[in-house]
C-alpha cells in the first residue's frame, strides 16, 4: 500500500503545521487502537496510562526509523541512537507495567506505522516531523507525572522526559537552531 502523504489541508496552513498535525494524528491513531494492557492491574495503578505511553513509544521508534532514512551523516547516526532510546523507554515502562501485574502492549509491524506517517520529501521535512514527535513525547511525560501513583513510575516518567527533551534539543541542533531556545520546555499536544 502506498504511504499516506500529508493530509489535504487548508492552503492557509503552513507546511510545518501540516506536518505537526500529521505527527499528532499518526501518533494518536497508533496508540488509539491498541488494546488495554491487561485485565490484571487495579484501576488507578498507572498500568493503563503506562500502556498508552508505551504504545506511543513504539510508534515513535518506528517514526525515527523513517526519519533516519531521510537523513545522512550525523543526522542519521543521531536518529538511530534516538530510536534505540525510544525502544529502551518502552522496555523500561513495560517492566513497570509487569510489576503491577499487567501486560504491556506490543509494537505493530513497521509497515502499519509507516502508512500513517506523513510523506517526508527531504531532510527538512524529516527534521520538522522529528521535532513535532519529540514535542509530543515531552508533553506526554509531563502530563503523565501527576497521574502516576507510584514513586518509581513518576521517577521513570521524569527521567524519560529529560531524555525526550535532550532528543528535542538534538533535533534543534541538526536543524541549525539553538539547542535550548526556551526557559520552560512544555512540549505540545
Amino acid at each position: 500500500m502506498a504511504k499516506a502523504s500529508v493530509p489535504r489541508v487548508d492552503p492557509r496552513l503552513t507546511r510545518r503545521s501540516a506536518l505537526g498535525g500529521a505527527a499528532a494524528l499518526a501518533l494518536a491513531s497508533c496508540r488509539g487502537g491498541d488494546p488495554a494492557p491487561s485485565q490484571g492491574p487495579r484501576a488507578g495503578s498507572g498500568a493503563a496510562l503506562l500502556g498508552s505511553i508505551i504504545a506511543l513509544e513504539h510508534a515513535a521508534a518506528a517514526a525515527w526509523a523513517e526519519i533516519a532514512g531521510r537523513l545522512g551523516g550525523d543526522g542519521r547516526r543521531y536518529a538511530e541512537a534516538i530510536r534505540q532510546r525510544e525502544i529502551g523507554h518502552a522496555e523500561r515502562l513495560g517492566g513497570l507495567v509487569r510489576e503491577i501485574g499487567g501486560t504491556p502492549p506490543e509494537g505493530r509491524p513497521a509497515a502499519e506505522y509507516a502508512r500513517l506517517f506523513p510523506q517526508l520529501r527531504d531532510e527538512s521535512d524529516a527534521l520538522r516531523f522529528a521535532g513535532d514527535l519529540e514535542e509530543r513525547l515531552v508533553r506526554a511525560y509531563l502530563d503523565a507525572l501527576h497521574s502516576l501513583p507510584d514513586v518509581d513510575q513518576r521517577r521513570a516518567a521524569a527521567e524519560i522526559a529529560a531524555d525526550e527533551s535532550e532528543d528535542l534539543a538534538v533535533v534543534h541542533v541538526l536543524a541549525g537552531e539553538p539547542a535550548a531556545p526556551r526557559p520552560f520546555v512544555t512540549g505540545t499536544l
Partner: protein
Amino acid sequence: MSASRRELLAGAASAALALARSAPAGAASDVEQIERLLTLEGRLEAAYRMALERDAIDRSLGQTLLAHEREHVRGLEQVLGGAARRPRATVPEPGGGVAFTGPRAFARYALELEARTVAAYEDVLASYRNERLLQPLASIMAAEAQHEVALREVLGTDLLGVG
C-alpha cells in the same frame, strides 16, 4: 509570558500557602525540596553570570542560558513565597575557579552542574506532593536537559552524552 511560567506562577500562590502551613512532614519536605532546587539554580545562574564576565562562554549562548536560569530562580522563589528559610546561592561552588579559564573548561564544569541539577529535579518529581507544580517543575528540568546538549555542542562531544 510562556505557558509554563504562567502555570508556575499560578501554582505558586497555592503552593506558598500550603508550604507555609505548619503541617508537618509533607509540607516541610516540599519546602526542603524546592530549597534544594533553588540552591542549584542559584549556582547555575552565578556560574553563567561569572562566565560571561570572564569571557568563558560564547556571549550569545551565555546570555541565553543565564536568562533561563534567572527565570527558573524567579519561578522557584515565587513557589516558596514566605516559606524560604535559607538564602539562595549567589556564587559558584567553592573550587570552581579553574572552570572560568576558558570556554571548554567552563562547558565541562557547567555540564556537570547541569547534570546534577537535572538529577535533583528527577528526585523531586518522583516524590513531590503538590501535584499542581509537577508539570512546571518538569518543564524547568526539561530546559536544563537541553542546556546539557548545548554545552556538549560547545565541547564537540556526542550531543546525547554517549561515550
